[in-house]
Every structure is written in C-alpha cells, then in structure tokens.
C-alpha cells in the first residue's frame, strides 16, 4: 500500500526529530493521537494537533497518559491507525495498557522521547534509560518491537517502520527516541507518497459469520475486523480462546501466551535491523543504538586511527534483541563494548548472548548529555587490554 498524499509533506526540510517524527506518523497513515503532552516530546503532538485537521483525523489531549494509552486502542479497533506520544514519566503510566495492547493484539505505536529519570528526572535532557522498561514494563509474558532512531531523518523513517511492524505483527511498537534526537535539527528528506511503502492492516477476508477475533494465520498473527462491519468482535484482556471468550485454564494460557511470544520470536529474523561498520576483522565490537550510536561510530574511527581493530554493531531494532547475531560475533571477536546512555541495560542482553565467549564491557552514561567519543574510546582500549576480565562494568 502507498501512503496517502494528504499526510505526506514531500520535500527537503530542516527540522527537529520531534517534528520529523510527527510527519512520519502522518505519512504512515496515523490519523488519531490521544496524548498528554510532556517535555521533550511535546513538539510531536503540538505539530500533529496543527496538521491533523487539514489531513483529516483527530487529536485529543487526554486527561493523562493512562487515558491516552487506552483511547488510541479504541481508535484502532474502530479501524484507524493510532499512536500516543510521551516521555519517561508518562511511559510509566502507560505500562498497563501496553500489556493490554499486547494481550488484545492491538496494533499501535508508542513514541517515547526519552529523558533522564527515574521519576520526573531531567525533563529537558536526554537518556536511554527506558530500554528495559519498553520490553518488560507491563506484567505477564509478551513480546513487543522497539526501534531506535539516531537522527531527525530516522525519526521520520522509523515512525513509518514502527507502524509497518505494528500492522504486520499486531503488536504495540515502541519508537524509542531521546531528547537529543527529538530536539536536534537536521535535514530531513520526505519522499513522495508513492515512494512510501506501508503495510496495510490485515483485514479478515472470511464471511462475517465465520470470523474469529483471535484465529491466527500460519505466521501466528490473527486478522482484524472493523467494528461495524458485521463480524463478531471481542477485545478481551482475560486469557481467551480464538473467539475472544475468557478461558481461565492453564491450557488456554499456554496456547495464547505462547503464540503472543512466538509470533515475534518466530518472525524475529524478519524484524531484526542493524548496521555494521568495520566488523569483519574487529577485535572489539561496540554495540550501540540511538543517538549514542553516532558517537560510537566516531569512537570506532578514533580507535582505528590508533591501530585498534574496532567495529560497530548499531541496533536499529533493539527489541526483539538480535540474539543470533551477538552469538555469531562472540565466536569471532574478543570483546563487546556496549555504549548506551544508561547505567547498564542492553549490555545485559549482550552479556547473555555472548555466553562468556567474548568479554562484555559497558560504556555507560547516567544521561543528561551524550557520551564524548573519547569516553567510549577509553572503554574500547580497556577491552583490548589483557588485564580486563569478562563482565567488567565500570561506571
């Protein structure tokens, strides 16, 4: 499916990541946002509220983030593409309904422009410390997808990617921006509508009487029907069968929740996205994502200038985590340095997947500003020193 021309602001722009994200959401066909504006994400909804009347759609400023994260799911079941936009404190409040979206398989996008935490923390300064929360924040077993842009251009591109994943797999997708990317201005190229490929919602094709809300296709993803189209729909948060009727048994739980997890795990090889730089002969591989990955790129260049064989694995999709890729690289390289703007989150995944075959070090940062390239370089140098051992984290 191609994008709707009305929502696509084709051309070259010098804009910040928040505005660019808004344009990405519009280009993806998002026609509903329920939000509770919060720094540093406010500009996304501010622009959306201004743009959406002309494009055709709705913005509602809700009473809080709890309401925001549920109102969008109503819009999705009514047939729209919908998103909400927030930052850490609001993201915390949305956790319950991220679980609801996972359980009811409601495709929607949660934009989190991360700022320093915990609690209200650093409203105007960046962090990447909600990465584990994005994956594990709601209770129960489920899988989500999270993507991490490192430029205003990618805020546009990945807003579309996020919606495409949401529709493809019927999951809530997290667009994990940060304050730096959100408020940074760069050139953004918005292509014409017919150059933008969108994944259409997988509508039911069976006769209305035969439709089952949670009967999956072969790839474990069920089809949706619009409310009012004649199909019986039951959007159920209790453990349910294919009809959506609550079934409170271990058997039903196993069947449903395994599918919720496996529809992502089994398709993970199609979801993973990463960039590699000078990885072939690398003895130290820096793993990074979001804004930090740009600084990590610089650090790798500095290391190469010093004769250190360093490389970069830049994660675009952070969840699902590219387990196999890390396993493969662990067998070939000597050490991983995970560079992230938190005190140790994705490094845990790297450590898990390295299975002790390579050293795993953290180049952490408490947030408030991005790493200096030299700070990452220092950890790269530590990684190749014979004295450093497996699993050393120095903050």
């Amino acid at each position: 499916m191609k994008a709707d021309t009305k929502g696509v602001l084709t051309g070259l722009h010098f804009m910040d990541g928040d505005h660019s994200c808004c344009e990405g959401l519009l280009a993806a066909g998002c026609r509903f946002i329920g939000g509770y504006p919060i720094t540093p994400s406010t500009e996304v909804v501010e622009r959306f509220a201004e743009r959406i009347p002309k494009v055709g759609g709705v913005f509602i400023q809700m009473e809080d983030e709890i309401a925001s994260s549920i109102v969008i799911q109503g819009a999705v079941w009514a047939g729209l593409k919908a998103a909400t936009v927030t930052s850490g404190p609001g993201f915390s409040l949305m956790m319950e309904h991220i679980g609801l979206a996972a359980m009811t398989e409601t495709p929607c996008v949660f934009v989190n422009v991360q700022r320093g935490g915990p609690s209200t923390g650093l409203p105007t300064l960046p962090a990447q410390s909600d990465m584990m929360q994005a994956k594990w924040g709601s209770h129960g077993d489920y899988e989500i997808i999270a993507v991490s842009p490192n430029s205003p251009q990618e805020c546009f591109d990945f807003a579309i990617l996020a919606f495409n994943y949401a529709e493809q797999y019927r999951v809530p997708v997290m667009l994990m921006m940060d304050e730096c990317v959100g408020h940074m201005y760069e050139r953004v190229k918005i292509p014409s509508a017919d150059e933008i490929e969108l994944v259409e919602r997988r509508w039911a094709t069976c006769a209305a009487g035969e439709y089952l809300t949670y009967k999956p296709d072969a790839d474990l993803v069920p089809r949706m029907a619009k409310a009012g189209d004649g199909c019986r729909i039951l959007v159920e948060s209790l453990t349910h069968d294919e009809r959506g009727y609550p079934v409170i048994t271990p058997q039903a739980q196993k069947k449903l929740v395994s599918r919720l997890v496996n529809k992502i795990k089994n398709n993970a090889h199609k979801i993973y996205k990463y960039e590699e730089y000078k990885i072939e002969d690398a003895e130290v591989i820096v793993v990074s994502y979001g804004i930090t990955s740009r600084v990590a790129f610089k650090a790798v260049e500095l290391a190469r200038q010093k004769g250190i064989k360093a490389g970069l694995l830049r994660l675009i999709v952070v969840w699902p985590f590219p387990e196999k890729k890390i396993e493969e690289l662990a067998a070939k390289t000597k050490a991983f340095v995970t560079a992230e703007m938190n005190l140790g989150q994705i490094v845990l995944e790297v450590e898990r997947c390295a299975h002790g075959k390579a050293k795993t070090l953290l180049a952490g940062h408490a947030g408030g500003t991005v790493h200096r390239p030299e700070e990452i370089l220092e950890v790269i140098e530590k990684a190749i020193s014979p004295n450093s051992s497996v699993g050393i984290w120095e903050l």
Partner: protein
Amino acid sequence: MEIRIAGFGGQGVMLAGNILGKAASIYGNKYATMTQSFGPEARGGYASSCLIISDEKILYPYLTKPDILVSMSQEAYTRYINDLKEGGTLIIEEELVKLEPEPKNVKIFKAPATRIAEQVGKKVVLNIVMVGFIAGITKILDKEVVLKAILDTVPKGTEDMNKKAFESGYEYAVKNLS
C-alpha cells in the same frame, strides 16, 4: 565549523541558527546539525542555538569548541565567551554587549544590528540583520544560499523587509572588513 548564536529569548537566535542550518544543508550542499540550549523562561532568559556545519557527516551533535560566537546579550557574552576557540571569531551586537571581561586572542566584529533593523523597518528583524552580518564576516556560505533560506523561512508578506535586513547586515559586514 561550530557556531553559537546566543542572546535572550525572543530575539530570534533559534530562527537565525535555523536559517543558517537550512542554508547549509538544503541549499548549500553541506551537512548541518543544530541543537539548542535555553533557560526555562519563555522570554528574556538566555537562549543559544548551536550549529555545526561540515562537509562530512556530523556524528557528535553538540558543540565542543565553537569557532564563532555571536552574542546578542550581555548574559550570553559572559556565559559563553570562555568557550570560544582560541583565534576564533566573536561577533557582538555593539549596543547590547560590553566586552567585559576583555576577550583574549579572538577576532572581534561589532555590529549595530538593532539600529540597522530599526532603519530597515522593525526591531524584530534584528536576527536577520545578524544573519547577514555573520554571512558577510565569515563567508561560510554563499550569500544567495542564505537569502534563499531566509525567504523560505520567514512569514509570507515579510519577505521584502527581511531581504533588506539581510542585505543591510551583509553590506555592513563587507564594509567593516575592508
């Protein structure tokens, strides 16, 4: 090339940075990254736009040692003067900034930007006069490229006044240099 344009909120320093960034990255065939820093006040607090212009992809997004400091308020001057690179360029609005403390080892250019803006028509075009002055002094971007970015950015109906503001600032700089 790192440029900091600093003043107080409401003077249009963000728009000035935005125009130069747009000129560089959309019309000037270069890369540009702009970040901002400002105080909590809507108006009157400090504000600064931080612009990097480069022929190569910009990786680290913040300023490290600015080559150019444009100061449009006293607070901006005292706050940022020590960050300026040795041998760097200091541009000030001469009626709003006193050089106290005296800067060492920098090239100083003074512009009566507010006066010029008033002559052009309105004090609000002060930032565009400054953009003209910066373009004239530093020559980092072609005059036409910057003008294009200005006309592309300012509200409809104000193009003539802004064009005049830009050209007055530019000409003052060129005269000042010779």
